[in-house]
């Protein structure tokens, strides 16, 4: 059952990325380019998304379980550390280089955009490198 809700959620999320323009790297870079011809649209995308999600999450906080019966898995981590800072820094640089973040890149690749496909393969490689490093660290500890 969780998979059915997840598929529907992915579909709605993907529509949102397309309608908002977030799936288009040219528009993302237009937002990040404060010193050039600035496109403020992305601020409205983030604003709309955060308003809906804030209200929705506040209402869902009281629930013990999701509709599929799976528990509500709210993130528990709260400590600020160098992994969070360094990882976010690397991500932001990569975002600025090509204008793709993970969700829009997956949608654009699925739409048949070859460059997005190249980006997604490199992103998967990056995630695999992380998984391999972390496995080796755990194995060695």
């Amino acid at each position: 059952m969780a998979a059915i809700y997840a598929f529907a959620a992915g579909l709605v999320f993907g529509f949102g990325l397309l309608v908002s323009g977030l799936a288009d790297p040219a528009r993302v870079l237009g937002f990040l380019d404060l010193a050039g011809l600035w496109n403020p649209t992305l601020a409205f995308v983030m604003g709309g998304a955060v308003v809906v999600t804030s209200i929705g999450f506040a209402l869902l906080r009281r629930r013990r379980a999701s509709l599929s019966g799976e528990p509500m898995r709210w993130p528990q981590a709260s400590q600020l550390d160098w992994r969070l800072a360094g990882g976010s820094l690397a991500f932001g640089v990569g975002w600025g280089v090509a204008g793709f973040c993970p969700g829009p890149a997956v949608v654009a690749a699925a739409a048949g955009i070859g460059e997005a496909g190249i980006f997604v393969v490199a992103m998967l490689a990056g995630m695999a490198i992380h998984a391999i490093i972390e496995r080796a660290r755990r194995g060695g500890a």
Partner: protein
Amino acid sequence: MNVDWSAFTPLAGTAGGLLIGAGAVLLMLGAGRIAGISGIVGGLFTPTRGEGWRVAFLLGLCAAPWVYRLFATLPSITVDASTPRLIVAGLLVGIGTRYGSGCTSGHGVCGLSRGSRRSFVATAIFMAAGFVTVYVLRHAVGG
């Protein structure tokens, strides 16, 4: 500051943002999970039982442009980055989002909406890094 009024689409942006939020709320309501794309994809590298929702969410995400095409023309997607730049960007985004535990969706949308301190810090850092990177590539070294 010069605003690119011809590309400024606040209504479509807001409508799309509302849909993104609706998708995030639906995933938590239906499956009890946070809609963080990098976490959903990255979790596939350490597979465990009962993780079919990850694949299902990604299938929905990939189906979106195809369903969209049934009703309307797909919005333009323009990529200017060269192949080497796409590869460097992809590697940085892949490694960075895993060490940083999230991306635009997990930290920027879901985390800020939960009032997470970690997500405020992460979002501030990756936004700042994005602004600086575009400035350097477009205006300092001339792209």
